[in-house]
């Protein structure tokens, strides 16, 4: 199989950027990534743009073409991709596939989202889906999992809160993160209750932002950069939907994870740094387990041990994660890849994991019958 490298990466700050249009958020990241790659826009053969909500919120469509035109890219095939929170990693998977197939040599992936909108309300899956009509919202879905995890494995509210505290501490070392002021376990527990046991500080904030990466066939990447980052695995799975979900674990993580580790010829013990989809504190704990960083049921104790903090055995979410960096849906999973590039190049500043050589990014999105509809895992190596 043909090998693929990432040769360029960039992103905007995440957070409220009310005055900046969606196209500008995406284009800033795209221009940055193209310059970072040391490539001319005309050398890019195919483009992918990830976004989830623009069609709903502002009625925009085929935004990718507008963004890429601002970045000097036209004429080539452009695809607009929506796959909930994994839209960016899904677009990346398509870009990777387009290069390993031999059809294209250089691809760009851009993700951008504007989500800081007055009166947006709680995010729902879709106005015709039965679980939504019956009162299900995203946070009740994860609060249900948190309650079950606590009942099944003895995970504590304090352990859940430690995820938010850790990621906030990490965000203090990331100038692009939305929230950087340290918080304590007590502050997380005493914040306004959203859906027990999840308080306001247990949930990721809506954000605006953009991120982009440039991929290149590995045999060509040294024309452009001396620091190519190798894509060792890119996996996307959807759910099983057998209507008998085990809500105390992420079956999709376990399945996608084993596929990704096999593809990469690596295992969880080989990882140096991880970013995962910590939309709510419980998610990060369950992703530890799904990715094999610890056995199922041990995630709460893993965060409490400090192993997933910077300086620990396997740092998770050094950027601050969705919880503190913010979650501009379409940009989120592309930004995870940007962080992978920076960590593996040794360009991550104060949050650099010393000597990082293997990086994993996990993302997950949407829900049907208790199963995730989409789960992505990307493994990078320098």
């Amino acid at each position, binding site marked *: 199989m043909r090998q693929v490298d990432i040769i360029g990466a960039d992103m905007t700050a995440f957070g409220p950027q009310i005055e900046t249009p969606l196209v500008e958020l995406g284009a800033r990241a795209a221009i940055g990534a193209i310059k970072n790659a040391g490539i001319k826009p005309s050398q890019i053969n195919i483009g992918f743009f990830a976004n989830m909500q623009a069609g709903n919120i502002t009625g925009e469509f085929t935004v990718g073409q507008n963004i890429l035109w601002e970045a000097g890219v036209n004429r080539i095939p452009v695809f607009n991709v929506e796959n909930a929170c994994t839209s960016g990693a899904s677009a990346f998977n398509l870009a990777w596939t387009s290069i390993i197939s031999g059809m294209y040599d250089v691809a760009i992936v851009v993700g951008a989202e504007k989500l800081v909108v007055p009166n947006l*309300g*709680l995010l729902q899956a879709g106005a015709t889906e039965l*679980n939504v*009509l019956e009162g299900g919202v995203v*946070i009740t879905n994860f609060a249900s999992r*948190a*309650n079950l995890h606590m009942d099944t494995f003895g995970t504590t509210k304090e352990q859940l809160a430690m995820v938010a505290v850790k990621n906030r501490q990490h965000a203090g070392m990331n100038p692009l993160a939305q929230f950087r002021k340290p918080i304590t376990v007590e502050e997380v527990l005493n914040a306004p209750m959203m859906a027990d046991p999840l308080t306001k500080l247990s949930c990721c904030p809506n954000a605006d932002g953009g991120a982009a990466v440039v991929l290149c066939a590995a045999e060509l990447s040294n024309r452009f950069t001396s620091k190519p980052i190798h894509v060792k695995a890119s996996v996307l799975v959807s759910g099983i939907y057998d209507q008998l979900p085990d809500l105390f674990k992420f079956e999709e993580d376990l399945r996608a994870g084993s596929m990704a580790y096999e593809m990469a010829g690596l295992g969880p013990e080989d990882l140096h740094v991880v970013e995962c989809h910590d939309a709510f504190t419980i998610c990060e704990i369950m992703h530890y387990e799904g990715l094999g960083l610890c056995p199922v049921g041990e995630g709460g104790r893993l965060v409490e041990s400090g192993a997933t903090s910077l300086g620990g055995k396997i740092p998770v979410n050094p950027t601050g994660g969705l919880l503190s960096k913010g979650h501009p849906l379409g940009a989120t999973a592309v930004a995870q890849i940007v962080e992978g590039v920076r960590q593996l190049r040794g360009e991550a500043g104060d949050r650099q994991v010393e000597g990082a050589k293997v990086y994993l990014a996990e993302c997950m999105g949407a829900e049907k019958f208790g199963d995730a509809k989409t789960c992505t895992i990307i493994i990078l190596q320098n």
Partner: protein
Amino acid sequence: MTSELKPVKEGIFEVGPPPRLRGAICPECNQKFFPRPMVCPHCLGELQDVYLSTEGKVYTYAILRVKPPYKLPRPYAVGWVHLEADGIKIHTLFDPEKLSDLDFGRQVTLRVGAIGVDNNGDSCLRYYFTPQVGGEQ
């Protein structure tokens, strides 16, 4: 009055009494589904209508404290009921009057009642499960 209200979605339950959820079964795969898919997703064969059991056990639940959608009560509880006789777990509202009786494994019984509004903003009927107080754990 209740009988004049429409279900939050047509075809998913019968008001009764007794109220009943309308699922489907594939006679080839012997698998039940709720809500009813177009065909059996395993064999693409035709499905038969079936009423699901009206009793189950709380698998897990969550209580939403913030402003609710669909003018549901504040707070309200949603979660999952294991219909053991049918071999499926379904997402459901729980009885908003009995939040403190919710617990893992608690026996619950199906009800249909006027709760909240539909996508058009009209008051409507929803299915929910109510805990059997003193019920088997």
